[in-house]
C-alpha cells in the first residue's frame, strides 16, 4: 500500500470518528442525564454517582404520571395505524400501479399532498371535529388521524413496488384459473413482502414519533410517549433525568423492530427478483 493510500485511509477514519462523536453525542448526553440523581442534575462536570432511580421512577408510576400506559398507548396507536394503512393502502397501491382509472392520478396526488401540508395547518379544525365526534383522546381517533402520516407513505412506496413487478406473473395466474383476488394475494403480495416489511417499519417510526397530533388530540387516556415524556418537565421543578429516561425507553420499540427486520430492509431496498 502506498503512503498516499494509507494517508487517505487515516483521514477517512478520522472523519468517520468525528462524525460518530457528532452524531452520538446527544444520545450519550441523554444516557448520562438519565443516570444522574436528582440533586446532581445541574452539575456540568462528568463525575456523579450514577443511579437507575430515574428509570425506576419513570416505569414505576410514582410521580403520578402513568408513563407505562403512555408507552402501551403508543404501541397500540402506532401498530393500529400501520395495520389499518396496510389494509387500505396495499390494495390502493396495487390498483394505482396496475390500472389508470378516472381520477387515479388526482387521487394519488391528493394522498401525497397530506404529506406536504404541515400538521399544524389542520390541527385546530381537527381538534374541534374530534371534540364534537367524541374521538378526542381515543385510540380510534389517534389511529384515524395517523393515517395522514402512514397511508401516503405506504401507498406511494408500495405503488412503485407493484409497478416493478411484471404484470405477466398475475396474468399467467389468471390464465391458470385464479381469480383477480387470488392473483393479488397469492402472486403479487408474496413478491413484495420485503417492501411491505420496509415500509411498515418506516410508517411505524413516523407514527411513533408523531408529536403534534397526540399533543392536541389526546389528554390522558390515549396520550403517547412523545407527549407523555414531556410531562416530567412540568410541576415545580423540571425533572430532566426522568424525561431523558422516558425518551430512552421510548426509543426501544422502533430500535428492536428495525433490528429484527433488518434482513428484509436490505432485501426491500435491493429488490429485483423479476426481470422486466
Amino acid at each position, binding site marked *: 500500500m502506498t503512503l498516499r493510500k494509507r494517508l487517505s485511509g487515516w483521514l477517512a477514519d478520522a472523519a468517520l470518528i468525528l462524525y460518530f462523536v457528532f452524531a452520538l453525542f446527544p444520545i450519550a448526553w441523554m444516557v448520562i442525564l438519565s443516570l444522574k440523581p436528582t440533586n446532581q442534575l445541574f452539575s456540568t462536570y462528568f463525575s456523579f454517582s450514577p443511579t437507575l432511580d430515574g428509570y425506576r421512577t419513570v416505569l414505576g408510576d410514582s410521580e403520578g404520571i402513568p408513563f407505562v400506559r403512555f408507552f402501551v398507548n403508543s404501541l397500540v396507536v402506532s401498530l393500529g395505524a400501520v395495520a389499518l394503512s396496510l389494509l387500505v393502502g396495499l390494495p390502493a397501491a396495487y390498483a394505482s400501479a396496475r390500472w389508470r382509472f378516472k381520477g387515479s392520478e388526482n387521487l394519488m396526488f391528493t394522498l401525497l399532498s397530506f404529506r406536504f401540508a404541515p400538521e399544524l395547518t389542520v390541527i385546530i379544525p381537527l381538534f374541534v371535529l374530534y371534540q364534537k365526534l367524541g374521538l378526542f383522546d381515543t385510540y380510534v381517533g389517534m389511529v384515524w388521524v395517523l393515517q395522514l402520516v402512514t397511508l401516503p407513505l405506504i401507498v406511494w412506496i408500495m405503488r412503485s413496488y407493484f409497478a416493478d413487478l411484471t404484470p405477466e*406473473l398475475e396474468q399467467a395466474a389468471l390464465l391458470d384459473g385464479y381469480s383477480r383476488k387470488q392473483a393479488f394475494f397469492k402472486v403479487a403480495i408474496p413478491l413484495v413482502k420485503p417492501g411491505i416489511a420496509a415500509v411498515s417499519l418506516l410508517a411505524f417510526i413516523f407514527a411513533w414519533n408523531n408529536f403534534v397530533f397526540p399533543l392536541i388530540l389526546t389528554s390522558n387516556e390515549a396520550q403517547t410517549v412523545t407527549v407523555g415524556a414531556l410531562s416530567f418537565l412540568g410541576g415545580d421543578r423540571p425533572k430532566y433525568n426522568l424525561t431523558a429516561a422516558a425518551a430512552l425507553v421510548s426509543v426501544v420499540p422502533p430500535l428492536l423492530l428495525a433490528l429484527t427486520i433488518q434482513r428484509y430492509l436490505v432485501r426491500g431496498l435491493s429488490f429485483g427478483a423479476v426481470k422486466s
Partner: protein
Amino acid sequence: MTELELRDLRKTYSARGRPSVEAVRGIDLTLRSGELLGLLGPSGCGKSTTLRMIAGLETVTGGDILVGGSSVTARPAQQRNIGVAFENYALYPPLTVAENLAFGLKARRRADRGDVDRKVKEIAERVDLTPLLDARPAGLSSGQKQRVSLARALIREPDVLLLDEPLSHLDAAQRDTTRRELKRIQRDLGHTTILVTHDQEEALSLADRIAVMKDGVIQQLGTPYEIYDSPANVFVADFVGEPAINLLPGIADTDAHARLSDTLRIALPVPVTAGRKVIVGIRPEDLALTGADGLPARVVAHEPLLESGIATLALDGVERPLVVLTAPEVRLAHDDRVHVTADPHLTHVFDAETGDSLR
C-alpha cells in the same frame, strides 16, 4: 384437439384527449386443429394485442373469438383454458420448478395432490425438465426457463397454446436447440398453436402457416413457401427473406419488360400495361453474375461469408444498390465490372402506388 377461429377481430385503444388508435383492424383467421400458425410482423403491428385478446388479457373492441366452435369472447381469461408461454417466462421466483408447474393446476382445485405430482412428472418428462424440478427459476438458463414456461402453459392441457416471442431472449446456440424441441413438443402433443414473433426465421422454421401482419391488418396468409415465393405486396416481400429483397423502381414497358433507367431493361414475369409505375423485386439469391450478357454493373462492396458472399452492385444509371448472393468461389474487388442476370420466373413485380403484387 381444438379449432381456433378469429372473426373480424378488432381492437381500438381510446384515451381521453388523444386520437384513438386502431391496433387491430379486422382479423380473420382459422386454425385447423393441431396447426401451428406464425403471426409475424414488426413491433407495433398488432400481433401481441391479437394474442392478448385471444388469451383474454385484453378486451375485444369488435369481432369474435371461437375456440372449438363456441365463442369465448365474453369470457374472462380464467374461463378460456388457453395456455400462454410469456416472452419473459413469467416464472414465480420463490417457487421451485415443480412448484411453479403445480401452481397452475391448483387454481381449479379439481386435482388432488397425487394427481398434481403425477402431472408435474409427466410434463417434466415431456420437456426434459426432470433433473431441474427442484431448482429455482433464478438458477436456470434462458433456454431452461423457456421450457419451464412452456411446461407451465401445457400442464393444464389447454385448448389453444399461445407462444409470445418464445426464442427472443435466447442466445444463438440455445435458439437452435429450443426451436427443434418446441417443434417436437408441439407436434407430439398436437396443440393448436399461435406463435407470435418479429423474427422471420422463428416463424419460417416452426410454423405450418404464416400470417404476416402490418398496421393491424394481415397482409398475407400462407405456407412459408407461399409467402416467400409469391409475396402479396412490397411489405411482405421486404419483411420476409434475408438478405432483404432488392426493390427497384421502374416503369413498365411493352413486351413484359420494365425500364429501370434510360438504358436498362429487365424482364418481368407477366406483362404489365406500358407506362405504369412499378417496383421490381428480385431476391439476392435469384440473381446470378454472368460474363458478358445481362445488366452491366460496378461492384461497390463484396462481403465474403465463406459459404456464400454478398455483393453490393451499382447498376449503370440506377440509384438503388443491388444486392446479389454470390457463390463461395467468387472473388470480387471494388470497382470490378460485372454483368448480372435475373430469371424472370423468379422476379416479382408490384404496383408502385399500392404496393400490391401484379403477378
